[in-house]
């Protein structure tokens, strides 16, 4: 029995009819980037791919020649590589932590943001995890990093923070990947049903035969809730343990009790900045203007402002305590970074992390998409410098002046660093081609009366309002 035209018109006038049209549009809008490829996308893939290739070439050269092609020396054994490691692990705090907290708080505006954020986390950890493999010089022996007992006569030292890193990063990578994958299963099923050929086959496997029964939805939501509860303390522990790589050693300005929270704060700070930047780019390139709205940037901008002030608070505490203690070994490092060799970098860091973003983010009229993206860009630069300034000045000015050294990065290290950014961009771009960057089913939940979409009129709800309440309905009439 077919519906009459009158029935269809009635349906369209009822909220349910409008919701269905919105659901259809969400489906179309969010699947479109997967099935169509723009010229800009190809250019972005080419550029990031070239950066990755350059990194591969530099790494090949390093393997062939030896790790002496890096600028590291005695006493600066850690430099660009560990800076990159700490930086990328920090960036990884964007996604899972923010996404988990917003999920637990049931913040409805999180829906378009979470997947963008969770993807950043997974790719950042992967990149961060690759860097120690480069650093060890002989990556084919990388499996020696895995601590299994009494094999090959090597005894894992459970008292070493580097070993804690292994467990922390393993747990975080497993948790983040699961946290990203689980809510993607229904979307893979949607792609499976909308595609043909090879893509259909892949999505069939990745969707695990998802149907969408009430039992499956219910189990998925519980699993996501458990994951959100578990992942927050894991995320905090990961960067705390990364900070212990430094603070458990008796190196001037490293042996500090506030390094744990200082690192976690810095990680969340840089993570939010990376998220805002990624969202701004996705919004532009994938035409997600109706989904990633100014409200999201405004809310994340406020969070970024808070983190900027918190970062300054920790930096100030750290420096003030050192200055007040006035021990010669620590003051040598202190003055190196404030007034001497590293001063340009230090003040660039302060400008990038505080002087530029705070005025932009404190005024509502500047807390726009462009404003938050500019602030985020400077913060990314500032936070990379911050990681560098934590590591290098302390190492090249250790306790005994005769062992002081100077570190200068080489082109190999520069290339590897640039390549890590290229790899992040490339992985993100390829991911956006395989998976909707905004969860389709979660957006549809937002259209339900209790989901904060169609009934709620609060402007704070960041569902695609234009789509649901004001947007023009497509002219075609459904059968």
């Amino acid at each position: 029995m077919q519906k009459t035209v009158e029935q269809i018109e009635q349906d369209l006038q009822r909220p349910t009819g409008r919701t269905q049209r919105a659901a259809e549009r969400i489906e179309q809008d969010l699947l479109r980037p997967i099935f169509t490829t723009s010229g800009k996308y190809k250019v972005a893939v080419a550029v990031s791919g070239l950066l990755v290739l350059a990194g591969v070439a530099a790494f090949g050269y390093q393997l062939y020649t030896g790790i002496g092609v890096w600028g590291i020396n005695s006493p600066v054994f850690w430099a660009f590589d560990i800076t990159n490691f700490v930086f990328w692990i920090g960036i990884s705090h964007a996604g899972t932590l923010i996404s988990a907290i917003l999920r637990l708080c049931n913040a409805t505006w999180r829906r378009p943001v979470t997947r963008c954020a969770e993807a950043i986390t997974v790719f950042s950890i992967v990149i961060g995890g690759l860097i120690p493999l480069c650093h060890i010089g002989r990556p084919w022996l990388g499996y020696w990093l895995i601590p299994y007992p009494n094999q090959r006569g090597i005894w894992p030292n459970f008292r070493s923070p580097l070993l804690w890193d292994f467990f922390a990063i393993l747990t975080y990578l497993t948790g983040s990947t699961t946290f990203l994958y689980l809510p993607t299963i229904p979307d893979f099923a949607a792609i499976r049903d909308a595609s043909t050929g090879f893509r259909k086959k892949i999505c069939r496997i990745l969707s695990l035969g998802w149907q969408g029964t009430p039992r499956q939805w219910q189990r998925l939501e519980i699993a996501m809730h458990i994951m959100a509860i578990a992942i927050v303390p894991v995320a905090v522990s990961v960067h705390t343990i990364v900070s212990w790589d430094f603070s458990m050693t008796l190196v001037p300005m490293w042996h500090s009790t506030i390094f744990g929270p200082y690192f976690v704060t810095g990680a969340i700070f840089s993570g939010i900045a990376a998220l805002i930047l990624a969202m701004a780019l996705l919004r532009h390139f994938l035409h997600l203007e109706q989904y990633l709205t100014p409200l999201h940037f405004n809310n994340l901008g406020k969070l970024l402002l808070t983190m900027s002030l918190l970062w300054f608070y920790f930096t100030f505490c750290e420096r003030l305590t050192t200055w007040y203690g006035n021990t010669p070994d620590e003051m040598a490092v202190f003055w190196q970074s404030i007034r001497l060799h590293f001063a340009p970098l230090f003040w660039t860091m302060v400008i990038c992390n505080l002087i530029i973003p705070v005025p932009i983010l404190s005024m509502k009229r500047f807390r726009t998409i462009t404003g938050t993206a500019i602030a985020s860009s400077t913060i990314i630069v500032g936070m990379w410098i911050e990681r560098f300034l934590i590591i290098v000045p302390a190492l090249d000015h250790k306790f005994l002046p005769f062992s002081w050294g100077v570190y200068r990065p080489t082109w190999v290290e520069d290339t590897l660093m640039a390549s890590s950014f290229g790899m992040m961009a490339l992985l993100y771009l390829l991911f956006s081609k395989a998976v909707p960057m905004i969860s389709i089913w979660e957006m549809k939940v937002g259209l339900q009366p209790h989901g904060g979409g169609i009934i709620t009129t609060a402007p704070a709800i960041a569902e695609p309002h234009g789509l649901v309440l004001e947007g023009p309905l497509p002219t075609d009439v459904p059968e």
Partner: protein
Amino acid sequence: MKVLYALYADPETAQRAVDALHAACSELNFDERQIVIISGEPHEGYDFADSHITRRPYGWAVFGAAIGAGCGYLLTTLTQRAYPIFTGGMPLSPMWTDGIIVYELTMLGAILTALITLLVGAKLPNFKGVIKDPEIWLGKILVGVADPLESSQQDVQECLLGAGAAEVKQFSGVSD
């Protein structure tokens, strides 16, 4: 598998269809477990969706966390005790540093158990006979009966139409 089903525009009418099928199942000789409900998004606050609510996965996650903690403890303690190491009076198995690894493995245990619980509870992966209709992804809710008796198919159709469906469709059981 053969499924007779109809698509409903909103959860209220889907709930009416489910109620009608529940009421008719003994008369039409099918089991309640043969009722199929599929949607493109979760629906809360309706009997058909809430009937599967359970707190059991939380308990399993805690159990998984305990297993993870036990593994962490055994890994750190047994390994270190097996070393022929002279520690100069320091504890052979230090509680503080071992605790960090035990903590990480506790969380890993909880995470992996949550994943396993989902897969088992949601019966995934399951590639056979995936029921699908493109309109599900456009917001419709599928309600139907799997493998109804030949004799009761007409009544099932009437049941589905009576709840407000526009038409009744049939899924032949061919997996994608």
